[in-house]
């Protein structure tokens, strides 16, 4: 759902995606310290594999994105992690095109970074319930934002808004629900057993 193949979006959208991705990549690379590198690599691998888990949703099938939890745990470093994983998905599985890599990275990476900023600003170590709720909001919210950005990329390329919105949003709802639950559980656990993970960087 979230991976746009080559030949769908127009040149202005491609350029916008590439420029935005380059900017976020530059900022993300600065957050890549040697100490945090193993964590970035592990979550990048999780993201790479998550797209292979399929949930049946009506006529089509959808897959997890997991960009909310990546942002919450990695912060800015989520962007390079997502970009590397997307590149490999395109090369190995034909998921999304190579030319539109910038657009796809923007659609999934920017919500990740934003979800991370929100989560890190609002979570509290001594308030597990609040942390879990915040995790749900970030997990679901990041998918929702990805969906909106995906729809906008398609509409900006001359697709009819209503058709795109219907198809894309309908298939995204189950993903949002699953990711909200998953992110809440995972971040709730991390906040309990290893809170320093969510504080540094």
């Amino acid at each position, binding site marked *: *759902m979230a*991976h*746009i*193949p080559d*030949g*769908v979006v127009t040149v202005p959208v491609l350029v916008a995606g590439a420029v935005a991705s380059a900017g976020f990549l530059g900022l993300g690379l600065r957050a*890549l*310290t*040697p100490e945090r*590198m*193993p964590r*970035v*690599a*592990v979550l*990048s*691998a*999780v993201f*790479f*594999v*998550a*797209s*292979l*888990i*399929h949930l*049946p949703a009506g*006529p*089509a*099938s*959808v*897959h997890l994105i997991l960009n909310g939890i990546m942002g919450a745990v990695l912060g800015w470093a989520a962007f390079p992690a997502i970009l*590397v*994983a997307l590149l*490999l*998905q395109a090369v*190995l*599985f*034909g*998921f999304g095109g190579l030319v539109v890599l910038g657009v796809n990275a923007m659609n999934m990476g920017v919500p990740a970074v934003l979800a991370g900023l929100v989560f890190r600003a609002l979570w509290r170590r001594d308030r597990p319930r609040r942390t879990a709720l915040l995790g749900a909001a970030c997990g679901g919210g990041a998918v929702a934002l990805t969906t909106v950005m*995906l729809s906008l*990329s*398609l509409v900006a390329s001359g*697709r009819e808004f209503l*058709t*795109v919105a219907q*198809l*894309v949003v309908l*298939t995204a709802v189950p993903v949002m629900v699953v990711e909200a639950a998953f992110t809440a559980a*995972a971040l709730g*656990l*991390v906040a309990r*057993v290893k809170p320093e993970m969510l504080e540094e960087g």
Partner: protein
Amino acid sequence: MKRLLLTAALVLAASPALAHKLKVFAAAEGATIVGTAYFAGGGKAQNSTGRLLAADGTVLTEFRTDAQGGFRLDVASRQDYRVAVDSGDGHVAETRVAASELPLSLPMGEGSSTPSAPAPVAAPTPATAGTDAIEMAVARQILPLRQQIDALEERTRFSDIMAGIGTIFGVFGIFAWIAARRPRTP
């Protein structure tokens, strides 16, 4: 440790899963192009818009896939065709049908990929009519096989998944190596 378990669980749950990617399969059955549009590993692409194009990209006809994602298109000339399908949510797929798949009795069209083929006779003689019938029967017989091979190509292989994970760790390992060599700023 918990994280490791989480990763392991996700990796295991992903065992030979399939990609969510639109694919279109098309082959000639006599003077008809038959095919299906489907999501690799998922369902059929029902009610999607499709276009039959000539080799140079001119649109010859437009169609919609049925509830099984299938379509049938009659063609009038023997030339290379392209079939493009668009599911409307940002997935597109395209495939080709070569002129050599179509029966010899059809009039030669422009853009044929088989210029060396013998010039077709104007009216089907008994000989070519017989050949056409055999070709059509064979085409119908091997169609499911070709469809299966086409779907098999899209299978996500475990080796691909492991290659991807290995490459990711390698890339970040190189990052870490470069970052560690740089003098640390306090």
